[in-house]
């Protein structure tokens, strides 16, 4: 069964091109612009949690950070931010404390820069420098204001005949505040490490984009899985097979195995191109992380999940046209939602929830953990379990809905 389908597949140049050449074309088309952009000024993404929500000072601080030009500040919710950081989907996080707005002579506030262990130290250092710079600038302004307010209070409290302050008094006051801010800053930046074991990994944009497209296209292969089942069902050959003593489950399995193998080969091919060809074009070389077994297992589960999805579509669609239409829509939408084009951590809250319903999102999280953050098998077990679950669920519904008549 399987061997025959592979032979049929090999005769079908069009689908081979679709399966292997198109993904690579996509990666190249989408990586080249990033290459051009990254050679220019590339803003560093700064996820920021604002615990002093609504405070004008906090807003001012955020605006000031954005104005520096080198940073792209994204305000996100605390819980999500921590989760992302824990998962390693982001590598650092800036947190403004609740009491940020109450910064003053008698109240020092601390802005925290929380770093993932895998964050590049050089990048962290520059972020910290920018944060400190902005904080200082703001604190000085703020301290001066505070000082003048103090003078006003003193003036109000003093008897009328003493309410004479010369310019010297102001300058003296300001100077002492400056000294003050240097020795005892109103805003300090503290750097903490998020709790997670990991290793530093050298990687470039390739490690983020390539798995995205590998996942997108492996799941697109679910379409050819579905089509090969539905088409065989419509062709007379299905009757012949049904008339043979071959059991119905081995019939389905025979249809699924070649597509499963095709999925595996797609990943291998895409990764191979990313390792061997991209460097020749001046792009980053794909790094395979530290845990080849976990990578293999992830790939196997992604392929299984795609095959299950194909069976699911075959169980629902009645005709090849339906299967084709259904799978194009479902697979591209799932791919987009699942973060194959656009990282999920940049999506809004509700969209992110929807995203986590797609197998793509879980597949990408596993690949990111392995390839971007240098995680190992233990780190991706939950993702793999969920992928397996989704795959089994798809396959079960597909088999249940599948009519042999």
């Amino acid at each position, binding site marked *: *069964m399987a*061997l*025959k389908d592979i*032979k*049929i597949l090999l*005769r*079908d140049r069009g689908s081979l091109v679709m399966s292997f050449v198109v993904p690579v074309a996509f990666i190249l088309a989408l990586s080249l612009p990033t290459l051009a952009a990254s050679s220019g000024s590339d803003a560093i993404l700064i996820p920021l949690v604002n615990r002093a929500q609504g405070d004008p000072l906090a807003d001012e601080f955020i605006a000031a950070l954005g104005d520096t030009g080198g940073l792209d500040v994204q305000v996100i919710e605390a819980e999500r931010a921590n989760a992302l950081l824990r998962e390693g989907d982001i590598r650092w996080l800036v947190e403004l404390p609740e009491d940020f707005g109450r910064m003053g002579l008698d109240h020092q506030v601390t802005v925290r820069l929380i770093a993932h262990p895998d964050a590049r130290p050089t990048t962290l250092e520059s972020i910290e420098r920018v944060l400190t710079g902005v904080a200082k600038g703001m604190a000085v302004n703020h301290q001066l204001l505070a000082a003048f307010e103090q003078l006003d209070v003193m003036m109000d409290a003093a008897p009328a005949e003493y309410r004479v302050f010369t310019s010297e008094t102001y300058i003296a006051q300001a100077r002492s505040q400056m000294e003050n801010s240097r020795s005892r800053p109103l805003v300090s930046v503290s750097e903490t490490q998020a709790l997670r074991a990991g290793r530093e990994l050298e990687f470039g944009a390739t490690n983020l984009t390539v798995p995205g497209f590998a996942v997108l296209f492996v799941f697109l292969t679910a379409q050819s899985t579905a089509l090969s089942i539905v088409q065989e069902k419509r*062709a*007379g*050959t*299905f*009757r*012949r*097979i*049904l*008339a*043979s*003593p*071959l059991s119905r489950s081995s019939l389905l399995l025979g249809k699924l195995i070649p597509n499963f193998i095709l999925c595996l080969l797609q990943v291998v091919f895409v990764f191979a191109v990313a390792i061997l060809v991209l460097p020749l074009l001046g792009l980053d070389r794909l790094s395979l992380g530290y845990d080849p077994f976990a990578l293999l297992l992830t790939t196997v589960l992604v392929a299984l999940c795609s095959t299950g999805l194909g069976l699911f579509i075959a169980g629902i669609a009645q005709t090849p046209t339906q299967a084709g239409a259904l799978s194009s829509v479902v697979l591209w939408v799932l791919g987009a939602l699942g973060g194959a084009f656009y990282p999920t951590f940049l999506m809004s809250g509700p969209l992110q929830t929807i995203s986590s319903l797609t197998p793509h999102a879980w597949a990408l999280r596993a690949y990111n953990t392995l390839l971007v953050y240098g995680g190992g098998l233990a780190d991706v077990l939950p993702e793999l379990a969920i992928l397996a679950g989704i795959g089994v669920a798809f396959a079960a519904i597909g088999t249940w809905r599948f009519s042999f*008549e």
Partner: protein
Amino acid sequence: MPPILEVSDLVRKYGDFAAVDGVSFTMQEGEVFGLLGPNGAGKTTVISVLTGVLPPTSGTARIGGHDIVREQAAAKRLNGLVPQDLALYPTLSARDNLEFFGRIYGLSGAELRGRVDAMLDLVGLEDRADDPIERYSGGMKRRANIAAGLLHQPRLLFLDEPTVGVDPQSRHHIFESVRRLNQERGMSILYTSHYMEEVELLCDRVAIMDQGRIIAIDTVKSLVSMLAGVIHVGLRKADEELLRALAALPTVNSAVDAPRPLRSSLPDDEAGDGPVAPPADYQMVKLEAGDVQRSLVDVIALLGQKGIEIVSLQVLEPNLENVFLHLTGKRLRE
């Protein structure tokens, strides 16, 4: 020996519509059995149920003593299916197709290769065995289609309209293959068709099917003998006395005056050898006879005795087509 196939009150419905509506018949081992019926009669549906492609709605059937539902695997191993529609992978070669269909019956290795070669040889496709099926002619595709149902050497072969859309050469080849399979290997064959000539030529017994039911089942000969043959004789002179004398012949059932037949009023395949430019002054007599050949001898003898000149002679032998027309009031092919 137990019958190779016993079908008993088989029903198969699509929704409320009974495509097969209580079919029963038995086939003996080594028999070539014809299932004759017009489009939509339910022939293919009968075969689908018997081969386990569709479950029956009710009724039972046994192949070689194995119930087709309860002992499906055993029943399936005994039969082979050659579907009505081409059932091959068009981009693969005949050899690849055959190897695949052999493999799903559990064949492998040298045995598989041997059988594939033997079948390619049987249907005469050895030369083109490695070309993709899509480059074959219609007749070659049909032949490959037949070969694919034979690899596991079934004892009972279902051939569903194997000659539809086939050129005379391939048709002849297919008939030859069917004969050889039956005679050399003793294979039992259930052959469906709406070409009565094929069934008359190949089959021992025939079931005539219409609207999901079998309306007649017997040997071709007995079915045909249900109907009388017709002899039209054109005579110089035919009076009442002559008609009485003709009707009195033991081999003639009736003799009546008939209007001169218009050639165009007869269907082509019934026309036979029509009268050749009959003179204007003659009379037509229509005779009905059970055994046309024998009555013809008697009729010609009688007319010779009486010195009456025969101007024209036309014989309409009964055939399955007429039997079908007689039974259903419909033609086999519209």
